[in-house]
């Protein structure tokens, strides 16, 4: 059974045939692209003209996201920016504290039990001139139910008095840098860092294992994929216990599940050898729509949380250097064993010192276990300098840069965390490409919204939230950005032979667009409208989700 889709234009990403008007699909795979006449040679077919006025692109690939983006929509959204939920509703951004309170009051009115918790997410006081939300603000919403708002960064939680009371923290005499106190000596309700957030978070309705994605969460995540043109997305850090794997195997195998999910096993909580064993076992369970067996190693923290490991001269505001989340010995062991056993690692490094450590370990590991096509990928890698990009190229590493971060927190990095020069080089896409480092760009959803076309816009324009261009020299052009969100990301997952371009033999995974991203003004790339996706030849219109 062959279907030939017509389109206003097909952007193939196939270098020998970059553009076409038709694409033929059989059994969920691409027979070929070209003119209708060229494709008729494949025999009997159905002509599907659903997309005749639309643009077909290879299905977009999100190389660094977390499926919990789907789960978070259970909670009330109070972010500064407009954001679309899995059902297609666009929630208007809350532009000041009053708007946040208003949103919470609406949510409060919908919950009958006046003691039930009210969890909300995506607050970012940076955009309110750093005016902090206090427990008194939230007490205006309710004094009987615990209320908590997770910040967009995921590093800070704001709660009301009731939540503090339930956690036993509504008292004087607390001496903890993560718990700022008001003039009355009581906590202000702001809680900084996971270790002080957790004991209160459980009272405000944030589930204990928030990162773990449940069945509804992964279904909702896949809906967000369809709405943003994504056909393959990573779930970049999960413990992947058997029951979670079984759930994901079952859900992703359903006929109407619209995305390919690539979960990576992260290194916490097991020894290096257990990690390697688990990854090897997971690899054998892999299916087409659930690609298992890759490893994620978290090396340091985040720059805006001052927990990233950065090189001299350190943080611009004088904060002490950040935290290592793994020892060099363990990192070296995992890298060596993975090279030896042909396992595939992605490392999280934000600071340039953490990146340097990974490069050192790789250099050493590759001498012992030469691996010509390992594609180990530095994720985030936000602060890397040009010498480090030259090393990445020599060591055969890939990079997946956090282009969205530059927009949301670029101003903070400039003023506060690393200062003007290093803020300007952050997420240096142009330097990566110039040095021949295979590159992807990402959202880290739910830290920033899933949406590769928005991510591409960030990398092309390098605007910060305040509207400044930060790092003119690191801008890339639209073609490079579109490559990064398709073949670029697929390459980092070793899936570029299957997805990422529209070529004979590959999966029939398409992003269906209303506007032509190659023709729009670069400043409008983020506004390109998405009709939905085709995944394995199956049509998923966003409007019908």
């Amino acid at each position: 059974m062959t279907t030939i889709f017509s389109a206003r234009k097909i952007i193939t990403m196939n270098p020998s045939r970059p553009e076409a008007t038709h694409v033929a699909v059989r059994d969920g795979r691409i027979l070929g692209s070209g003119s209708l006449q060229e494709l008729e040679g494949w025999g009997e077919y159905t002509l599907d003209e659903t997309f005749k006025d639309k643009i077909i692109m290879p299905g977009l690939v999100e190389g660094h996201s977390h499926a919990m983006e789907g789960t978070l929509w259970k909670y009330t959204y109070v972010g500064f920016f407009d954001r679309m939920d899995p059902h297609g509703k666009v929630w208007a951004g809350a532009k000041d504290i009053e708007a946040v309170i208003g949103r919470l009051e609406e949510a409060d009115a919908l919950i009958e039990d006046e003691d039930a918790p009210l969890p909300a997410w995506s607050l970012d006081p940076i955009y309110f001139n750093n005016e902090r939300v206090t427990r008194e603000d939230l007490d205006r919403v309710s004094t009987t139910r615990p209320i908590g708002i997770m910040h967009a960064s995921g590093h800070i939680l704001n709660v009301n008095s009731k939540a503090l009371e339930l956690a036993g923290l509504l008292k004087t005499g607390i001496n903890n840098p993560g718990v700022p106190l008001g003039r009355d000596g009581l906590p202000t309700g702001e809680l900084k860092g996971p270790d002080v957030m957790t004991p209160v978070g459980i009272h405000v309705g944030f589930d204990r294992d928030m990162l773990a994605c449940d069945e509804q969460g992964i279904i909702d995540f896949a809906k967000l994929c369809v709405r943003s043109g994504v056909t393959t997305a990573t779930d970049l850090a999960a413990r992947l216990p058997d029951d979670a794997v079984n759930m994901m195997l079952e859900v992703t195998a359903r006929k109407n599940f619209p995305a390919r999910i690539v979960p990576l096993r992260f290194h916490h909580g097991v020894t290096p050898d257990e990690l390697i064993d688990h990854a090897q076992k997971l690899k054998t369970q892999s299916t087409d729509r659930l690609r298992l067996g890759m490893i994620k190693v978290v090396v340091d923290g985040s720059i805006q949380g001052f927990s990233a490991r950065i090189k001299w001269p350190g943080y611009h505001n004088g904060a002490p250097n950040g935290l290592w989340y793994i020892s060099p010995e363990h990192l070296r062991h995992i890298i060596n064993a993975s090279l030896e056993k042909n396992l595939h690692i992605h490392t999280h490094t934000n600071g340039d010192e953490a990146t340097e450590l990974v490069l050192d370990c790789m250099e050493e590991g590759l001498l012992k276990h030469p691996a010509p096509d390992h594609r180990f990928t530095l994720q985030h890698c936000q602060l890397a300098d040009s010498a480090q990009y030259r090393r990445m190229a020599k060591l055969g590493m890939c990079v997946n840069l956090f282009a969205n971060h530059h927009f949301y927190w670029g101003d903070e990095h400039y003023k506060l965390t690393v200062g003007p020069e290093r803020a300007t080089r952050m997420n240096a896409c142009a330097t990566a490409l110039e040095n021949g480092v295979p590159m992807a760009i990402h959202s880290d959803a739910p830290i920033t919204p899933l949406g590769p076309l928005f991510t591409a816009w960030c990398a092309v324009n390098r605007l910060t939230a305040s509207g400044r261009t930060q790092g003119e020299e690191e801008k890339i052009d639209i073609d490079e950005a579109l490559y990064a969100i398709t073949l670029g990301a697929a390459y980092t997952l070793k899936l570029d032979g299957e997805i990422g371009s529209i070529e004979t033999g590959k999966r029939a995974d398409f992003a269906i667009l209303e506007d032509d991203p190659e023709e729009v003004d670069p400043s409008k790339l983020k506004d390109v409208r998405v009709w939905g996706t085709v995944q394995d030849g199956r049509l998923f219109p966003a409007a019908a989700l």
Partner: protein
Amino acid sequence: MTEAEPTPITVIGGYLGCGKTTLVNHLLRHADGKRLAILVNEFGELQIDADLIEAQDDEVISLGGGCVCCSYGNDLITAILDMEKMDPRPDHIILEASGVALPAAIASSLSLLNGFSVDGIVVLADAETIRQRSTDKYMSDTILRQLESADILLLNKIDLISDPERKTTLGWLAEIMGKTPIIETQKSAVPPAILLRDFGRHLDSESVAAPHQAENFQSSFMAVDVPVDPTEFAESLIANNRGLVRAKGFVKSHDGSMHTIQIVGTRVEITHAPDGAKPGVVTISVGPQKISVTEGHDKSG
């Protein structure tokens, strides 16, 4: 409303290979009827003698004598909160931090939890490698921050270095550690009474004797007959007792109320005393001049 005494938590820190796991095993072997709950980052590297294990699943190993061992993976706080539900509750929680963790940050967070109190931070240093490690390109500041966070420092594997090395290392450490007591150990063997709260509710000279006979340690009992300011009193104990590693006792303050004083190294905790507590303080000190210097050696030179 009666409130149960908070469960004490000892945080054990130090870089890879310093002997943390050996110390945990040592404490388990000498639990002496105490229900210890051990929290480790991951099970894999914790070699518990097989005959001690009664049952094991993914997250909990049940050991003889009511002791348990749990792995906390990346969610330490949740694992601690789960301890609240254990029946009976453990007498003492021993938390083995990961080799790169900063124990002070962990202790600071734990101090926020209702029903638990941080007993102290014990950091181990591998006598053979600590000075070299402290200059490591990547780990230097982490290791120094670990050392500085200690209430008690165990300089471990002391038997593996020569006497001149030992002197140099101790001198170097003294600069970093200030008033923090340093205990030299082999195979992490330290009298459990140093690390675990095991004083009874009523103190007298008898409670001094039992567990503190190890040769390098001195115990003593002080009667405190006059009313004192508890905080000032605790601070003066630390200032005037070189090598003080642990103290517990009860004092009467100027307003007549009774207070419990707990000192672990340089950490002081003052709380309301239980009913019927009688004034008096037991101290355990380590005498630097005595450490691993036998009389014979002393005179042989």
